């Protein structure tokens, strides 16, 4: 899901700034669109994408085009704008932008927000500052060099006079926009790199933050839905009589499958005066489903088949050196197979949106990660132009990749269209858990060789998992060469390697889940490396260090350096090698994903069946950290999600349908299972900022599994460790 580096470079070359002049009594500045990324742009593409709006009284609004789901982006990016603008943060109000190409790319995922938008947003702020300075210089009839901006005002170096930003907006609005505004040097940063409090913390603790599930409109109705339980199945018959007879029920709406990647899987909805009546009526429907061709999907059997597929030769997608020779010359050889289950994102706010389909317009309030795909999907569904669909991006009560897909919005649109009123549909937890776009279940088999000097010489890696590409093309039945890149381009120094793709035909909807394939790759590669170190009789930390140090490819020198940087930092934090009681152990892992580097050391204690995670030490290199507090929170959250999927959670299918239903049988991590201590350190801050939302997940499970081995001598190769 990450944009290629080439796209990002094209983007930064083409960006430029443009002012759209005075509007509603203020100065508006923005960053132009990255034409190379969005493709089909018209002249509207020259409209700004990130707004700085300053009122005549100086009140400043900064719009965030990226979607907020708790990761703090609507603070981190606007704070960078405010920094370059020399705005006083206490006078800045942050607003979430609606779906609009003027904001540039809004699909929020792949840990790309900072990566894509940091520079353009800073330029928007810097251009504003330069225009305000120029306005002051013009007012005072002195050269701009004799002026400087500081904390919402421009100062005259000659006589210390000053003009507040609000006093300058009218003059500034008539000035040309600087094409290449000068950005601050790092020592000049006021907010970037500081633990600025999120703009919305207060609203959250008083219950005033409004999510997609919370939006209200006069005359609105509420809907509940029961979905077709099997992908490709359908509703055979539905008896609506009892439901329609209930007081407060408006209508029962059959929603056929909408065969688009993010369209509804199909189901029956009830529209009523409130959510509770809708749920009661739903329970009274007599629905008969047709299962269809995926009706025998059974994950227990399927995972066994995946294991068979990776324990036999598969389709070679990458090869270097001579693996056969390396294996022949080996002093130590080892092999192991790792498996993982489907995962449900299960954000605390289930899928929810409010949609009002009218004759001449359609207005949507949705918790979403991708408002533009809502426009295209709902546009296609209603047979209207995407730009005619207005999407208000609401705060998402968690998303983790799930709210990239707008099937729930389309279902609300179907209901609104049927009853002619605004309809808010909130999925029940059960529907949320059973109607997902799941993280792939997977099997990986690794064989490797170590020579007499303890050097890793050969690596055979076979992976089988239903790929996300199957969502867009059902003919895809196994991982592609690109899907295997994380292995074939891994910064380990291995001269002889073969990477193979095993068959994994899809039977459900597969989607991006926080960290995506890095979850199982990070697990297998790190867990296996630890096993190999043990077999070779080398200390794990040393073995990891040596593997990276053995990589002499100049193209990967930076990856090696940064991987070693986090590895060494984590080892230092955890005091790796210190003596521990017999039933305790430390485990190490290091992984590179979303252009960032993370190493973790977990310290566990095992007492019978009970696992206590005492501490996780985590070193991160994501380049420059915009907000260390928010960044730390992201890592804490990633570790807790990582521990949950490592220990507890798996979505299981039987007869084509999901067996799990709610948090009792999908037990995400609880506070009692949370480590006593999590320490996070950031290194490598001289590099440009890179992804942070996802890279903390992949190292967690292997650090835990390796620590469990250190504590107990038992290897854990199948996730979750404690299936429900």
């Amino acid at each position: 899901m990450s944009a290629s580096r080439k796209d990002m470079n094209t983007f930064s070359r083409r960006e430029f700034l443009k002012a759209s002049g005075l509007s509603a009594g203020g100065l508006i500045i923005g960053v132009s669109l990255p034409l190379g990324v969005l493709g089909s742009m018209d002249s509207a593409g020259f409209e700004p994408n990130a707004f700085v709006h300053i009122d005549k009284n100086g009140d400043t609004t900064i719009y965030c085009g990226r979607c907020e789901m708790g990761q703090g982006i609507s603070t981190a990016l606007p704070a960078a704008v405010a920094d370059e603008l020399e705005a006083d943060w206490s006078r800045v109000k942050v607003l979430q932008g609606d779906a609009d190409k003027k904001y540039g790319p809004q699909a929020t995922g792949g840990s790309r927000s900072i990566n894509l938008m940091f520079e353009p947003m800073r330029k928007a702020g810097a251009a504003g500052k330069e225009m305000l300075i120029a306005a002051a210089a013009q007012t005072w009839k002195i050269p701009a060099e004799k002026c400087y901006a500081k904390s919402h005002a421009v100062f005259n170096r000659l006589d210390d006079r000053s003009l507040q930003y609000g006093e300058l907006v009218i003059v500034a609005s008539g000035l040309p926009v600087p094409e290449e505004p000068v950005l601050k040097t790092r020592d000049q940063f006021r907010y970037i790199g500081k633990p600025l409090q999120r703009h919305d913390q207060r609203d959250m603790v008083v219950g005033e933050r409004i999510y997609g599930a919370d939006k209200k409109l006069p005359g609105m109705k509420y809907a509940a839905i029961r979905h077709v339980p099997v992908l490709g199945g359908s509703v055979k018959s539905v008896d609506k009589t009892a439901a329609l007879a209930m007081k407060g029920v408006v209508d029962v709406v059959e929603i056929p499958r909408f065969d688009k990647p993010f369209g509804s899987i199909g189901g029956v909805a009830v529209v009523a005066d409130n959510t509770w009546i809708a749920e009661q009526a739903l329970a009274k429907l007599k629905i008969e489903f047709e299962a269809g061709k995926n009706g025998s999907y059974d994950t227990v059997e399927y995972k066994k088949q995946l294991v068979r597929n990776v324990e036999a030769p598969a389709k070679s997608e990458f090869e270097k050196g001579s693996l056969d020779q390396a294996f022949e010359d080996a002093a130590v050889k080892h092999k192991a197979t790792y498996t993982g289950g489907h995962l449900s994102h299960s954000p605390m706010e289930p899928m929810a949106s409010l949609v009002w389909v009218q004759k001449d317009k359609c207005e949507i309030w949705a918790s979403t990660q991708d408002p533009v795909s809502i426009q295209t999907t709902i546009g296609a569904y209603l047979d209207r132009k995407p730009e005619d669909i207005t999407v208000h991006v609401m705060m998402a009560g968690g998303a983790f990749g799930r709210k990239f897909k707008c099937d729930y919005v389309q279902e609300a649109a179907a209901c609104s269209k049927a009853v002619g009123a605004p309809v808010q549909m909130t999925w029940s937890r059960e529907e949320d858990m059973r109607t997902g776009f799941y993280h792939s279940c997977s099997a990986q088999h690794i064989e490797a060789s170590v020579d007499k000097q303890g050097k890793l010489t050969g690596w055979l890696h076979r992976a089988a998992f239903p790929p996300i590409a199957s969502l867009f093309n059902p003919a895809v039945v196994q991982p592609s060469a690109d899907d295997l890149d994380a292995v074939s381009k891994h910064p380990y120094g291995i001269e002889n390697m073969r990477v193979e793709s095993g068959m994994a035909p899809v039977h459900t909807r597969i989607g991006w889940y926080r960290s995506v394939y890095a979850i199982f790759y990070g697990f297998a590669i790190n867990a296996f490396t630890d096993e190999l170190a043990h077999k070779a009789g080398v200390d794990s930390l040393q073995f990891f260090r040596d593997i990276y140090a053995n990589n002499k490819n100049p193209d990967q020198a930076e990856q090696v350096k940064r991987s070693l940087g986090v590895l060494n930092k984590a080892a230092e934090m955890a005091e790796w090698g210190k003596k521990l009681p017999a039933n305790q152990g430390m485990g190490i892992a290091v992984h590179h994903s979303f252009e960032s580097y993370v190493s973790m050391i977990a310290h566990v204690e095992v007492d019978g069946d009970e696992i206590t995670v005492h501490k996780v030490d985590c070193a991160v290199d994501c380049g420059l950290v915009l907000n260390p507090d928010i960044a730390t929170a992201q890592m804490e959250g990633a570790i807790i999600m990582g521990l949950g999927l490592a220990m507890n959670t798996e979505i299981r299918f039987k007869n084509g349908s999901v067996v799990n239903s709610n948090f009792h049988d999908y037990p995400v991590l609880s506070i009692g299972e949370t480590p006593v201590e999590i320490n996070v350190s950031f290194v490598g801050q001289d590099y440009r900022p890179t992804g942070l939302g996802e890279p903390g997940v992949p190292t967690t499970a292997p650090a835990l599994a390796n620590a469990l081995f250190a504590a107990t001598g038992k290897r854990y190769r199948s996730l979750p460790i404690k299936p429900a």
Partner: protein
Amino acid sequence: MSFSITINGQLHKTDVDGDMPLLWFLRDTLELTGTKYSCGMGICGSCTIHLDGEAVRSCITTVSEADGRKVTTIEGLSKDGSHPLQIAWLKNNVSQCGYCQPGQIMTAAEFLVQNPEPTTEEINDALQDNICRCGTYIRIRNAVADAAEQMKEA
């Protein structure tokens, strides 16, 4: 059948179905949306409110059970966000998506009345059934401990 419930100090009379969970009465009828739906079976804690001072799950508490009683929601926990827990939540920057936090705070608020000087283990036990998917647990623990400290001094 009509019910009288005092919610955040204000008396509400209603003739909705007595079996309606308080959660939906609050959210859909009164449009008090600070109380969140998440599991619907009382196991995640997002919908926690106070019923006569006791922390209960509003998704499994009916309107008729609340008849004649006092309900406090996150909107009514303090007048201006000044409850020690709300302050501690801000001090520790607890919230990520924030969706579960009203329930966490309402659970913790009753807990601190029962146990003003909790150990870490007791905090864990009290909030064991309040799920946070963003993983803010470490900060929740710290914030509850901070609030307890503040309430002791006050």
